[in-house]
């Protein structure tokens, strides 16, 4: 720890911090554009100019004669930083005036307005007017810069964050600075647009509205969006994300910095891969097979009471869930080992726990099985080399994993506790020996393979809890319409054993319900689904998941004990 003084506030900073980080620890903001925690330092925007001095051994403070860029200046014991002197303020004003010289006044149509650092800093540190008498430079917009990215050239402040990102993080180096002086522009070589799998990150990195996401372009003003902290379910990396929604529609996903999980970024597959949650084909109401529904007809008539017979105000859920519970209990009692519950790696830990406990609570011998783990290729590691080769071990800055599900480890931990071992569905498709199935889906797309379809066959009881129709849901006795990742509260355990909490952002479409709520009611538990209370219960019950006992996992999540040991062993 190094003691530094920021505007007369004493603070303990890290030995490798620069002035910006040290000031941040003191609660002082040093404005900056070009500096980013995970990129190299160029000190080109000159926005973070501060006065820096040192404390001499006799206690006097000697300030440096010139302003220095805070991003490039390391600190040492006794460093004194001033960000509020007239000299610094004048420099900030002049820097902003320069950056705004050719910046068009089109905030009203700019997608960044509302989360723009140029707006924020101009408001806080800038001048109210420009002294420019000449016409502003106007440049062509570049929609060709990438499939997902558009460049509004005249809004750029030449911080080169995007250029450094493609060189240092993705390693693909598509973006370049062309020309010099006031004619500098970001551009790509013809026929080599910025289409790498991490390209979407340059939109987040851009501190102004120069790089915009074509997917989000003009869809919503950012001040209407409400954020929910969640976890990307695209692969087992489990990137921390925030889901931006308005009026029950998700508009975009953005990475949330989390050094424990993935760092600052996320891949385009995850970023733009959320569209399926608004798919029209999604199951939007629970469904009973004709045989079961006819039995409930008389019941439904009594519940609708005096209303006209065609007006059905009765909720289908209580009937479906009571029926399901009854059928499950009957089936298990008839033949416990003939009942198979298939768990999906898209379930949260809480949901897996609720279902496992319910099934095992009826009879010990009922079988719990882990559903298919979607896998596409192998892990894709970045930064790529000049020929697209993966980086050397230890130089990996971002990994897109081949395991395309968020919570295999979490569900496996629950299954190990309740079943003793993890039985994969692939291992029992040959001889399933089952007459009743409870199958949980929740996959992003069709997951029922021919082998599974054949193994399930036409059993005496088939209950499917899924978000999309499948061959199984077509012939199921009861279909429970469940929720996607944006509709669930819960915990995901990523590839490295990091348990992160996810929060629901929107409501499920139509009558569909998030899985936690379905399973709470199915298991006959009282109260509403509360992820935090359940985490405490799981932490106390399942030894491998004991870290969940605190209930609140914080913004960065908690590592499972087994993996925390591994991490410390690797560090030493």
């Amino acid at each position, binding site marked *: 720890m190094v003691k530094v003084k920021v505007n007369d506030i004493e603070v303990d900073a890290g030995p490798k911090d620069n002035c910006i980080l040290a000031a941040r620890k003191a609660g002082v903001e040093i404005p900056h554009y070009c500096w980013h925690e995970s990129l190299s330092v160029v000190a080109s925007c000159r926005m973070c100019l501060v006065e820096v001095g040192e404390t001499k051994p006799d206690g006097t403070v000697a300030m440096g004669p010139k302003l220095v860029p805070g991003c490039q200046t390391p600190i040492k014991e006794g460093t004194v930083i001033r960000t509020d002197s007239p000299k610094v303020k004048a420099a900030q004003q002049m820097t902003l005036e320069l950056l705004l010289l050719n910046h*068009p*006044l*089109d*905030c*009203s*149509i700019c997608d960044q307005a509302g989360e723009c650092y140029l707006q924020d800093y101009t408001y806080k540190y800038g001048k*109210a*007017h*420009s*002294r*420019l*008498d*000449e*016409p*502003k430079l*106007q440049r062509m*917009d570049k*929609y060709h810069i990438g499939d997902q990215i558009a460049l509004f050239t005249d809004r750029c402040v030449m911080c080169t964050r995007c250029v450094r990102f493609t060189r240092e993080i993705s390693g693909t180096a598509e973006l370049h600075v062309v020309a010099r002086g006031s004619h500098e522009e970001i551009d790509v070589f013809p026929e080599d647009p910025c289409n790498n799998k991490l390209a979407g990150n340059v939109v987040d990195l851009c501190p102004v509205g120069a790089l915009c996401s074509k997917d989000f*372009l*003009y*869809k919503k*003003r950012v*001040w*209407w969006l409400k954020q929910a902290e969640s976890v990307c379910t695209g692969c087992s990396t489990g990137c921390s994300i925030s889901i931006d929604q308005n009026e029950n529609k998700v508009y975009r996903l953005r990475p949330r910095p989390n050094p424990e999980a993935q760092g600052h970024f996320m891949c385009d597959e995850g970023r733009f891969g959320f569209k399926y949650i608004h798919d029209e084909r999604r199951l939007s109401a629970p469904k009973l097979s004709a045989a079961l529904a006819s039995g409930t007809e008389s019941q439904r008539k009594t519940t609708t009471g005096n209303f006209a017979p065609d007006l059905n105000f009765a909720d289908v859920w209580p009937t479906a869930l009571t029926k399901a519970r009854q059928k499950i209990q009957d089936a298990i009692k008839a033949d416990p080992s003939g009942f198979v519950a298939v768990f999906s790696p898209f379930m949260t830990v809480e949901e897996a726990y609720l279902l496992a406990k319910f099934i095992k609570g009826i009879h010990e011998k009922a079988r719990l099985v882990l559903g298919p783990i979607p896998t596409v290729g192998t892990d894709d590691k970045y930064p790529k080399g000049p020929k697209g080769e993966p980086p050397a071990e230890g130089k990996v800055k971002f990994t897109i994993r081949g395991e395309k599900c968020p919570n295999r480890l979490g569900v496996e931990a629950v299954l190990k506790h309740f079943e003793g071992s993890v039985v994969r569905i692939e291992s029992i498709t040959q001889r399933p020996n089952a007459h009743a199935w409870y199958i949980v889906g929740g996959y992003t797309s069709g997951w029922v393979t021919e082998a599974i379809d054949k193994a399930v066959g036409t059993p005496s009881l088939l209950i499917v809890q899924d978000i999309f129709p499948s061959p199984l849901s077509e012939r199921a006795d009861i279909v429970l319409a469940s929720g996607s990742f944006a509709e669930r509260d819960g915990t995901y355990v990523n590839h490295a054993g990091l348990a992160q909490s996810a929060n629901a952002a929107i409501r499920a479409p139509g009558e569909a319900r998030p899985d936690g709520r379905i399973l709470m009611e199915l298991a006959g538990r009282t109260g509403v689904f509360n992820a935090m209370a359940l985490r405490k219960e799981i932490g106390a019950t399942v030894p491998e998941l004991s870290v969940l006992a605190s209930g609140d996992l914080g913004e960065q999540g908690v590592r499972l004990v087994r993996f925390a040991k591994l991490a410390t062993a690797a560090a030493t």
Partner: protein
Amino acid sequence: MSNKKTKTVKWGEEPKLGMLDALYLPAIVSGLATAVRHAVSGKPTTRQYPEVEPEIPPNYRGVHRLNRDEQGRVKCVACYMCQTACPANCIEIIAAPAPKDDPHWKDRDKFPATFTIDELRCIYCGMCEEACPVDAIELTSVYDLTGLTRTEMVFDKEKLLSVFDETVKSGKDPVRTNRGTLGPASEVAPTGRQGPPPPGRGKHG
């Protein structure tokens, strides 16, 4: 410091009632006098509406209109400022990228694909007009707004533009906003300075 602050605030005092005022009689007499004066003056006070339409002051806040620019396009740039400012949530805009291939729209980036105002929900406060950076939305002096259904009173973009055409034709332009001098966002080439020069400096600072 605190002394200086209190001096800047003037507190109004209710006038004290005198002996005469406390009797109420003078007030009753003056009130009666007014009533009698009106009764015997013989001037009609009934307005013959709708045969005779009243003179509406030009700063009246009536039905909205969406202005057109010189080329007849909708002036609105779909910045959602009016929707954000609207206290009654009666404005709904869906923006879209301007058709770049169309030479007519070449200099525009964004335009409202739909623009609807629920005239029944609106409270005619004029905040939308004040928020608009390009003077695209204005409240006119058109006051006689009728319709047979609620949906009819939800005005879409075409209807709002037709209100503009009508009010321009009839010469009932609103006077509040500076029509003609556009906000910078809709101007083709923003030139010149955007603010007053700093005090005590020459033209070039």
